[in-house]
């Protein structure tokens, strides 16, 4: 329902429930605020938004508004000013924001705020983009009646954790930071302590300000009270150059701005994209940019000559690579050559990489699944992925989200914020996982399955959906699916009939009633989203079961419906799309000839290996058994150290390109810096190599030319171009004013483009294929799990000193019950042995783990988990030995 009101003699019609401050912004009237933030609930703490409000007088007899002699409505003015940020509009309301009274109110509030605010704007990081500074210039009385000598003094440069610095003098107690931590980040580790003048922001968590989202509080802080350690004193805001970019640390694809000064990135700020990251980014994305400026970057091509790496020219290096590849190809055939590309490379590079190997060299051996990407792939999203137009930031009541085997807070932090936000707004959230995760606190249903039984759990859910009816006696299957478009429903129903919740309960350990309740809640929703991650195990039957569940519930092909796979790297989705796997060509076309996968290649399946942006030999157990190894890298990684030729590549901030995020959104990023030394972008290296190998038509001058070819040849990318990816988004969707966005400039805003899934095609026929689940996991014994953590031992993250203390050190996490049984305490060494491999690590008691599960995070220094389990294995089979190491 809409409501019409008058603000400063201008009529505006807005939906009922809109706050006055938002209604005013809609017609371009700015009401100054400090504490109000459109992403959070209003509190009315700062009183800056005071306005005069009048309501129409209604005649009690007629029920109509009274009019005076002149025919004007009679207005009853409220006796005191009203905070525009907490007051919703009502029909006929009259608001005045430009009267002398309102101006006097603002003067008074600012005069009070400034009694305790220091005048150190010249040294304040916020100076120049500070709402308090700007609003003081605009609305303050100019002089204060308070004595400067009696100004309040408090701790300056108080470390609130090691990333955020608090200046207690500057804080105006608007509580934006504490509310962000409470309402949005779900980490209530900030609070206001004490009262009156003694009130201050504190954090007593261990370590202080323990949150993955702490940097966002510095963006929304309306004064310079919260600043980051990283940006501290590095530049004044007006000295910065801004480049629109996309974060490359996980698959969410947060839009960011690289703020550079003197050719270096000095800070990373979120760039608004309501469909991806709203206005937030995680601390890894914000602070882990230092790899760009690392002194250890490779800048010159290196070639092994007589056992030593020698600096050579590009011509020499590339000629050598081409000669050797040609020789090996002639001698052993093209199959003797393979290629491994990291999923952190942009689309253009990945496309050329597979094109070089498949078309120029003629080998099917292409893979990206090494490191974090190992052992986890996704082939169902192309059919049943979330449909175009999905916006997790707007779903709420009526939507069900099933999170399966993913710790979103660690694996895809901003996706966590959006899923938790949906749950906060009424969405049904089912969190199914092998251990307690942070998302549990927002979940309406928590299903704690035994590791290895995720597939059985999904079959249990399928059983309920296909065999049970709801309270009204209606089937749980979705009626959006036209029966003619689904094949194999009867067969699937017959197959899952034996997977009753009771049977699944004995296998998975999840109570049958919980499975039933979750399935009913999931199927009852109008929209459903399934988010699955690596901890569910990556059995093909699991992926099939998830796709089947999405199809039979009808949660496919419509916006806010479908599946999201939480893949590891920034462009893992793009790698899947572009066929950087041995069995698929770009655009999910099946390959005629299946090549070797990454594991087979590094174990000696090929004689020559091209590696770009990946580190397949990081696991020290692996021996390099190759005739020829070429590595395109930023750093001298473990693989590069073994290489015959090392080619210096450029980092994402130094080039343009595009990433495809988890929701299949292709997003373009601009170059912000110059590459160091002689480094070249990967696509350019591949192009030169192809030309030297005699390929024709490889005359791409820019990534745009590569993308143009992708759009022409791959149906998924049809209709896409850099122009369309960088289509500016209409400003009305944005919180235009920097007061809300934390910076002094209006950053460019693009939404990117999603490619449509098969389910969105009107004529697509869904085939409900049946795949038998993997064998039941053992119900006894200990399981070793290798979960992903945000601050792991990754190559890029390791270059940021600031986050060094946050990086997880190698340890074994043990549940308190098991620790008691084994007599373990924090820090004691544990011996873990599996399949003739063993390791001794310090123990960390972690109450999030269930009994019988121990965890060693993936991708830590020395890759201990990968050494024990084998790369790509997320949890151990039976036969695990855990014991306290003697003498510790």
């Amino acid at each position, binding site marked *: 329902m809409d409501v019409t009101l008058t603000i400063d003699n201008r009529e505006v019609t807005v939906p009922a429930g809109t706050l006055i401050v938002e209604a005013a912004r809609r017609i371009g009237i700015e009401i100054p605020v400090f504490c109000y933030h459109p992403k959070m609930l209003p509190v009315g703490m700062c009183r800056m938004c005071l306005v005069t409000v009048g309501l129409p007088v209604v005649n009690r007899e007629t029920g109509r508004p009274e009019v005076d002699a002149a025919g004007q409505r009679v207005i009853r003015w409220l006796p005191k000013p009203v905070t525009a940020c907490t007051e919703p509009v009502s029909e006929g309301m009259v608001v005045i924001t430009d009267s002398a009274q309102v101006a006097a109110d603002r003067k008074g509030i600012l005069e009070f705020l400034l009694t305790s605010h220091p005048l150190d704007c010249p040294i304040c990081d916020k100076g120049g983009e500070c709402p308090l500074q700007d609003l003081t210039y605009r609305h303050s009385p100019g002089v204060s009646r308070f004595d400067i000598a009696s100004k309040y003094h408090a701790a300056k440069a108080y470390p609130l954790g090691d990333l955020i610095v608090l200046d207690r003098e500057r804080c105006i107690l608007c509580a934006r930071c504490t509310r962000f931590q409470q309402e949005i980040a779900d*980490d209530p580790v900030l*609070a206001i*302590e004490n009262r009156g003048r003694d009130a201050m922001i*504190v954090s007593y968590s261990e370590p202080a300000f323990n949150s993955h989202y702490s940097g966002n509080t510095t963006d929304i802080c309306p004064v310079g009270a919260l600043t980051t350690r990283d940006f501290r004193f590095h530049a004044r805001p007006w000295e910065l150059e801004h480049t629109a970019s996309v974060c490359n640390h996980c698959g969410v694809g947060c839009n960011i701005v690289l703020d550079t000064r003197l050719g270096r990135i000095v800070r990373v700020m979120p760039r608004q994209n309501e469909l991806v990251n709203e206005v937030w980014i995680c601390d890894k994305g914000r602070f882990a940019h230092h790899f760009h400026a690392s002194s250890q970057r490779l800048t010159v091509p290196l070639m092994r000559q007589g056992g030593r790496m020698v600096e050579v020219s590009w011509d020499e290096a590339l000629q050598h690579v081409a000669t050797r590849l040609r020789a090996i190809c002639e001698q052993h055939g093209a199959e003797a050559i393979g290629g491994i590309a990291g999923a952190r490379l942009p689309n253009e590079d990945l496309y050329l990489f597979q094109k070089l190997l498949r078309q120029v060299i003629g080998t099917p051996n292409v893979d990206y699944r090494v490191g974090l990407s190992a052992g986890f792939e996704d082939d169902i999203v192309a059919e049943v992925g979330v449909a175009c137009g999905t916006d997790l930031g707007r779903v709420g009541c009526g939507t069900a989200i099933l999170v399966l085997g993913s710790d979103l807070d660690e694996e895809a932090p901003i996706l966590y914020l959006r899923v938790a936000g949906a749950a906060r707004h009424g969405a049904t959230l089912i969190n199914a996982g092998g251990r307690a995760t942070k998302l549990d606190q927002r979940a309406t249903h928590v299903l704690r399955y035994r590791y290895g039984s995720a597939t059985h759990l999904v079959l249990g859910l399928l059983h309920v959906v296909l065999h049970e009816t709801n309270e009204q006696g209606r089937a749980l299957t979705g009626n959006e699916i036209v029966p003619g478009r689904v094949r194999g429903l009867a067969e699937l129903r017959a197959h899952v009939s034996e997977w009753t919740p009771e049977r699944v309960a004995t296998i998975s350990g999840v109570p049958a009633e919980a499975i039933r309740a979750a399935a009913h809640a999931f199927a009852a929703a109008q929209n459903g989203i399934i988010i699955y991650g690596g901890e569910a195990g990556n059995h093909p039957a699991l992926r099939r079961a998830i796709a089947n569940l999405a199809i039979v519930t009808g949660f496919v092909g419509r916006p806010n419906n479908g599946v999201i796979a939480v893949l590891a790297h920034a462009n893992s989705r793009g790698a899947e799309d572009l066929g950087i796997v041995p069995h698929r060509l770009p655009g999910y076309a099946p390959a005629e000839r299946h090549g070797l996968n990454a594991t087979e290649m590094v174990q000696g399946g090929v004689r020559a290996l091209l590696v770009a942006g990946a580190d397949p030999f990081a696991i020290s157990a692996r021996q390099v058994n190759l005739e020829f190894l070429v590595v395109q890298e930023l750093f001298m990684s473990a693989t590069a150290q073994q290489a015959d030729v090392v080619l210096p590549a450029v980092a994402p901030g130094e080039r343009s390109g595009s990433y495809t995020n988890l929701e299949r959104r292709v997003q373009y990023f601009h170059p912000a810096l110059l590459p160091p030394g002689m480094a070249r972008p990967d696509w350019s290296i591949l192009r030169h190599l192809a030309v030297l190998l005699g390929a024709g038509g490889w005359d791409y001058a820019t990534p745009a030319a590569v993308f143009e070819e992708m759009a022409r040849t791959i149906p998924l990318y049809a209709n896409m171009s850099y122009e369309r990816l960088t289509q500016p988004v209409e400003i009305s969707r944005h919180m235009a004013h920097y007061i809300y966005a934390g910076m002094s400039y209006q950053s460019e805003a693009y939404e990117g483009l999603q490619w449509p899934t098969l389910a969105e095609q009107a004529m697509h026929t869904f085939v409900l294929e049946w795949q038998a689940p993997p064998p039941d996991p053992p119900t006894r014994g200990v399981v070793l799990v290798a979960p992903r953590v945000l601050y792991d031992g990754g190559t890029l993250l390791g270059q940021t000193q600031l986050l060094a203390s946050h990086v997880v050190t190698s340890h074994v996490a043990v549940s308190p019950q098991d620790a008691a049984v084994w007599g373990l305490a924090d820090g004691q060494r544990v011996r873990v042995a599996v399949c003739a491999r063993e390791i001794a690590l310090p123990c960390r008691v972690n109450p999030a783990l269930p009994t019988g599960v121990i965890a060693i995070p993936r991708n830590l220094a020395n890759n201990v988990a990968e050494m024990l389990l084998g790369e790509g294995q997320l949890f151990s089979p039976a036969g695990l030995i855990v014991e306290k190491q003697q003498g510790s």
Partner: protein
Amino acid sequence: MTSQAFYEELQGVLKKYPVKQSAVLEALYILQRDKNYLSDEDIHTAAEALEMTVTEVQAIVGFYSLFRRQPTGKYLIQVCTDLPCALRGADAFYRRLCERLGLPPEGGTTADGLFTVEEVVCLAACDRAPVAQINLQYFEHLTDQAMDAVIARLREQG
């Protein structure tokens, strides 16, 4: 108070509230009751029992002046010395009280740990000043002799 006893008492308290966190004030009151102040350990106990973060509990403790974070004597004597009371001699009365208990003018806790004297602003009893609040009990129209008698009686009680 042992944590065992605390958890037992808390179970009864929790029944009164729809969500655990609502019981935070009562839980803190139970923890403070016996020794008159909340130690760091108590804050952690409350946070753990009520599934809150330490920061949240600490913020609540900081907000309410009746929760004390420093070791306090068995008897907390609060004397108002604000203007109306001072006009009736409360400030001099307070200074003399500190002197007689051997405390510095800003108050503090006696060596035997029995009394803590504190200057406060307004006890809402200006008309009966000098006034002292001893562990939530009011003593009005005080003179030095009357106060000495009260202190002697409390000393006897130990």
